[in-house]
């Protein structure tokens, strides 16, 4: 089978792989150096939303399920982490784990119900359940309703590193972000990811090959929810509060927008989309023009002109094809 081995890595592809590694290295270096040029809290916000969008994309881009309720996992985890850190006095890393576990549990319930239907019906179920969770958060005493959980302490990472230092916090967020991205990359490029891909390609064929498709979908749903929770928990620590904004349906919509703008089914697309939307949000926050008008306009442009999203179009272009050694279709 020497032929297969050599064929899976042609010299051209190996060169492309090197180019890819180089680009990833440069990007990481850029992120490490970024706080020298940008306001760390802004960068951390971008990273949290980027991770959120990537988690969402794991479901939409790689499994083909459109969730319109991902805010429940993101905002829910923010509440759980904030509560665990503030009220129970847990350390930040444990607090985030509480958020992730809570989001995964929510994902299990919502996913279990949503994957019984397909397409738009499944999406409506995620929206309905997320709205139920929103009203739960509005009423439940531990979330403090409209006020939210405020003054969440960042604490000391592993009891050692003081996260109230902006730079320490930034590098912690960066590390978690990269870890989350690596996890997603690993899931996509794993034997399990292969099955997800085949389900998305041809579901009834996957069934006829003996795969209980609903289990794979549910697993992907829970993974996506847990990673969205990771982003949400992180955000609660960054901003030191958790509010209803993060569980509202607008947040679910925003993550769809970020992912579409960046490029569905690409690993870095959602990162770019999140960075763009967050930057626009910050930039126009103080201007007279409502930011929703701007993002809405860009979204329409995206649908009309570059449907694959920014990174999707780049991959489809000649440059992208060369960079990827034409492995992507």
């Amino acid at each position, binding site marked *: *089978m020497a032929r*297969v081995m050599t064929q899976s890595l042609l010299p051209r592809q190996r060169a492309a792989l090197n180019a890819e590694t180089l680009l990833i290295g440069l990007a990481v270096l850029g992120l490490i150096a970024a706080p020298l040029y940008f306001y760390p809290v802004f960068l951390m916000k971008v990273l949290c939303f980027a991770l959120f969008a990537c988690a969402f994309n794991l479901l939409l881009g790689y499994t083909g399920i459109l969730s319109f309720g991902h805010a429940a996992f993101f905002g829910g985890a923010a509440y759980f982490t904030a509560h665990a850190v503030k009220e129970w006095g847990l350390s930040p890393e444990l607090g985030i784990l509480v958020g992730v576990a809570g989001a995964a549990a929510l994902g299990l319930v919502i996913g279990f119900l949503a994957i019984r239907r397909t397409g738009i019906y499944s999406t409506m179920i995620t929206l309905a359940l997320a709205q139920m969770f929103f009203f739960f958060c509005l009423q439940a005493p531990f979330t403090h309703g409209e006020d939210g959980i405020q003054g969440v302490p960042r604490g000391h990472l592993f009891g050692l590193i003081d996260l109230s230092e902006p730079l320490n916090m930034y590098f912690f967020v960066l590390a978690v972000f990269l870890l989350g991205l690596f996890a997603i990359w690993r899931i996509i490029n*794993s034997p399990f*990811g292969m*099955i997800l891909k085949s389900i998305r*390609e041809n579901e009834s064929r996957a069934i*006829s090959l003996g*795969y209980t498709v609903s289990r794979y979908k549910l*697993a992907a749903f829970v993974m996506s929810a847990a990673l969205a929770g990771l982003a949400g928990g992180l955000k609660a620590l960054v901003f030191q509060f958790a509010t209803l904004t993060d569980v509202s349906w607008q947040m679910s919509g925003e993550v769809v927008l970020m992912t579409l703008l960046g490029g569905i089914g690409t690993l870095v697309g959602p990162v770019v989309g999140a960075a763009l939307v967050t930057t626009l949000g910050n930039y126009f926050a103080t201007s007279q023009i409502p930011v929703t008008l701007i993002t809405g306009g860009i979204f329409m442009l995206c649908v009309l002109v570059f449907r694959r999203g920014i990174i999707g179009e780049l991959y489809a272009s000649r440059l992208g094809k060369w960079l990827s050694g034409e492995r992507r279709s």
Partner: protein
Amino acid sequence: MSAVIAPREGADAGEAAVVLSARGLRREFAGFVAVNDVNLDVRHARIHALIGPNGAGKTTVFNLLTKFLQPTSGTIELLGQDITRTDPARVARMGLVRSFQISAVFPHLSVLDNVRVALQRPAGLATQFWRPLRALRQLDDKAMQLIHSVGLQDACDCLAADLSYGRKRVLELATTLALEPRVLLLDEPMAGMGHEDVDIVSGLIREVARERAVLMVEHNLKVVAQLCDEVTVLQRGEILVSGDYRTVSEDPRVREAYMGTEDD
């Protein structure tokens, strides 16, 4: 449908074990009876054809047998086990694997990946989300063997979407065989194929039927005559007649049902 089409030579009349059987199968769609009282015995190492005019319910019978549809009444047994209420993925794992009328490949996966996906589950390599894709290389030998056996070795890195129609069907057969099924259900395996592809696929089907039962829906009566040991004719959801090709082709009711179509 006359003596011009010679029945398959040497078809042996001995009784082989029944591996798939349906009794009194019935399916209604909102009052319309699509399939009524269908009794079917599919035997080991035999090729059984299901023929009939358009809308006779052939595909519905397939969907019922593979549990993609639930029968309104009736029972289905696979290898002696009742599978009337079993879910389709489980039925596939028990050894009853089907193909579809339109070619069922994973279009944006390579030929090699298409076959490997089928091999992953039996090899216990389907749920590991923490392992790299490299882990799947251990399936390459077996996948290549299957790809060789259907003659696609020159295309193993092509995307399935780029294959010709006939080769897609051949690929589908390879992925189906990867599961080592006991019973193979082929829904119009030759539909839309050129002559040479038909010959290749006929040869492949004959080959795979040495060790397993094959039930196929087929419109090409020449193929049915040459390939199949037993033929069941469906009309308006009911079995018109069942038997070997000669018996069936000489039945006046079949001639009537097929009037004008014997030349395809």
